């Protein structure tokens, strides 16, 4: 459709050593992507919509106890378990390396939700509903999903399309880290993250900041994890979904199971 397009393969690196669990990414995503308002009932029914969420895990017992945070969003897998189970091909991996959902193909079987090991797909059990005045805030670049279909993180594809238009079709230059940053084009979560725990970039771009982490994790698979030179790992790597998101291990200065002298 678009000739001479530059091949991108978008990806994200999440540094768990920087994440403080502050929820800035969660709210930024909801504001950008027209997510329905998560009412009290949604939480009680365990049906809250959070395309990106912060999971909190406890480790240890008082007083040697730790809480750890991990932002979880669609992993945009290369071997996405959600894709083959869709009877109507509503979800597929596009040329940019994004796992996308075609809302007007989706018939709401929810097989994809069932098959996603990361639980990042959301079904619209109800028609989304906003008070009339709040509708003024809705982002015109993002489709409002109707009742009966599945939705998920898009890596803010609408921002990438705007960025491509501004950068690639005007000057023909590659949309890279620097230009994403200069134009404020990163996905809403990455843009918001106060500690810069989220990094977004192009896996195909040799200059990209995220590239070394992908090279490392791709070179040394889960069976050779100890040979990796970075802190990178993939979520539930053993099931071989090959996500486009790499997590960097949390640095644990005082591990709970150690008995050495420290304060």
């Amino acid at each position: 459709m678009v000739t001479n397009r530059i091949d991108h393969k978008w990806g994200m690196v999440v540094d768990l050593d920087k994440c403080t669990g502050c929820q800035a990414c969660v709210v930024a995503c909801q504001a950008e992507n027209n997510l329905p308002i998560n009412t009290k009932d949604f939480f009680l029914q365990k049906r809250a919509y959070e395309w990106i969420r912060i999971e909190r895990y406890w480790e240890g017992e008082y007083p040697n106890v730790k809480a750890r945070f991990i932002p979880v969003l669609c992993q945009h897998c290369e071997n996405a378990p959600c894709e083959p189970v869709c009877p109507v091909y509503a979800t597929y991996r596009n040329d940019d390396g994004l796992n996308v959902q075609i809302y007007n193909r989706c018939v709401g079987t929810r097989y994809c939700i069932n098959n996603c090991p990361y639980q990042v797909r959301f079904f619209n059990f109800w028609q989304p509903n906003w008070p009339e005045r709040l509708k003024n805030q809705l982002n015109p670049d993002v489709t409002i999903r109707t009742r009966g279909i599945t939705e998920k993180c898009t890596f803010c594809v609408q921002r990438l399309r705007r960025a491509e238009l501004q950068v690639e079709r005007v000057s023909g230059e590659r949309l890279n880290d620097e230009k994403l940053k200069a134009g404020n084009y990163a996905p809403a979560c990455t843009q918001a993250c106060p500690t810069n725990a989220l990094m977004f970039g192009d896996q195909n771009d040799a200059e990209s900041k995220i590239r070394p982490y992908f090279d490392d994790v791709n070179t040394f698979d889960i069976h050779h994890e100890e040979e990796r030179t970075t802190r990178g790992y993939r979520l539930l790597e053993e099931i071989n979904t090959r996500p486009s998101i790499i997590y960097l291990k949390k640095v644990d200065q005082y591990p709970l199971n150690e008995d050495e002298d420290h304060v």
Partner: protein
Amino acid sequence: MKFTRRNFLAWAGISAVGAVGCDVFGSEGQELRLQSPVMQPEDLVKGRDNWYATLCRQCPTSEGVLVRVMEGRAKKVQGNPMYPVNWGKQSARCDAGLQALYHPERLAGPMRRTGARGSGEFAPTTWQQGLDTLSAQLGERGNGLLLVTEPIRAHQALISSRFANAFGGRHLGFEALDQTTYRAAVKDVYGQDLLPDFDLAHANFLLSFGADFLSTWVSPTRWSVGYGDFRQGEGRTQRGTHVQVEPRFSMTAASADKWVPIKPGIEGYLALSLAHVIISENLQAVSTDVNALTGGQGAAALANFSPDQVGPMLELPAAMLKGHSPADWIRELARDFAGHTPALAIGGDSAAAHSNGLFNLEAIYALNYLVGSVGEVGGVRFNPGSPIADLPAASTVGTMADWTSVAGDIREGRTRLLMVHSADPVYGLPASVGFGDALNRDDLFIVSFSPFMNETTAMADLILPDRIYLEDWGSDIPEPAPGYQVLGIQQPVVNPLSDLDPRSFVDVLLSTAQELDRDGDLPWGSLQQALRETSDALFALNRGSVEATSAGEFWNSLLRQGGWWDERETGPSASAPNGLYNQIANRAAQPIFSGEGMYLMPFSHNTLLDGRNTHLPWAQAAPDPITTITWQSWVEINQRQMEEMGFREGDIVQVRSSQGSITAPVYPNPAMRPDVVGVPLGQGRRHGPEYAIVGDDRESSNVLSILASSQVEGTGALAWASNRVQVSSTGESIRIVKFEGEFTSREIGNQIDNNPSEEIIKTTSPGASH
């Protein structure tokens, strides 16, 4: 041929064989791509957007933001990458500001009270009538005027205080959990009037006492940006170590390398004991003059604070000490702190909110002298004053002592006109102050400028709704500034919707003063005009971030950048007062508590703060980072302690202080001192938009209401952490509204055969990090 199931299967088989056969015979295969030929709506770029730089007012920090506007509607708020406070980043609260702008229950226009005071019955009136009433009241009782705002700086502060002065009245800032004690400690220890900046990005050791600085304390987005670099900054050789000392496990404690559950109110003793070790073991920085700091006495000045004496006072859990004595633990911490420079000690929140809060903070901040981080890279940086004379660079906030006397003034008829803007003292002051009751006087006239109904506005006689900050002009001198002069500019990015008729609060003040001929000190027709005048004055300074050849060009660039700053105009340096440690040691005192039982730790909610964002659904629905609870109040108690007390998650408990009681569901927190109860601020409103008043008394309560009005010695601030409470069952139970599942999420990797591949959050040691 008849089409039967058997035939169908047969044909299907033949087709499959045929397809394989074709390949065998070498016909060129064509790649079939399972990809939609349909352009998706998201693929089409439509419309042009504009981004305007302005300031966010969702929390007292006022971060610089860019607002995306399409066809006259604001769509997204995000950090302004140029603004030197938050460097392009934002908190969850900034995003939620859009919901204030387009809130379904914004007050549409002026209203006057029709029912009894506090009944919440109002009828619409016109601006003409509303302003006439305001003028008449000011003419009649202007000398008994009290103007209450949120903590404000720069133009809003200048105009508000001059307005109050013009009528012989008074302007006072209100904040439920104020920074008065912190400000006093900075003054006593560093001799500075303005709050300092902390260079977290370059620190190697961060020792924080009570300050929830990654979530709500002072300038959380700024600290978070620095914190990211503190952990894994580019070019760093060593990852920073963070020790958080506080009785309640805050979001900041969750990020720390070590959490120290200290007994509440003893923070200052620990800090002095650390100083004792540093001085007696000669661990201080080379540049530090210990003689001057201790009046020539050396460690003897702190003789009462040796680790052996202070250790047992901390009441640290034995399991944390792992067989060491508490004294050894203090020595080890002191060596770690002094041995990893640049090291930084900060303190605030609960450490400041005890009767001895000023002592605690002074002892904490004095540590920075010992490790040589005052005015240095990776340490405390001081801020210069305002670039323009008269423009206040610090906010004036009333203390508990002030509010107690204000309540007295109202009761005795000395204050007869109350004007309230963007503050809610009826909700935020402890009921024991009697502020809300004092307002029930017939000869008192109350004007609220709030765009939303709230507890104070419900008591008003007249409501003149202000514009939301995204529709209005303004300015701010950030506090703390980043170590150099900054003046942020707030500009309207959209017009109010046609069905709303708000007016700018500051413009109303200016026009009213003019009408009543009290505008001697307020020579501006509008706030915009005052800002323009300031812009011209900045242009005349001929320095800073905005380059222009004419005043008009300067103004446009100023608006485009979202402000003006001059990196070369840095703050002063500080030198330690002689005998600082002798003074602090003399101030040492044990905390005094009201009531009996467990220690009550109220805390600012991550998104609702002290309740100012409760009407915003995004703020309500953002899970609390630790408990993941939404839309509700809760009572956090140590998990084991709760089992001993016989409570289960969701049991409604009564928390009774010396002043009253609230009820809320209980949440088992694995990380909590067993003698501490944590309750977040924010809920428990009875007046306000629907989103703000979800839930009944059992699950939505205002913990501020049950605090004793005890004060911090030496500052008069509310000692909000100095209450002890009894927690008892009400026999009722509900389901807690939380994001996490029915079972507490624990990392399972380590528990299943120590299999690391099962881990969700993998960890590594600092030595192995890259």
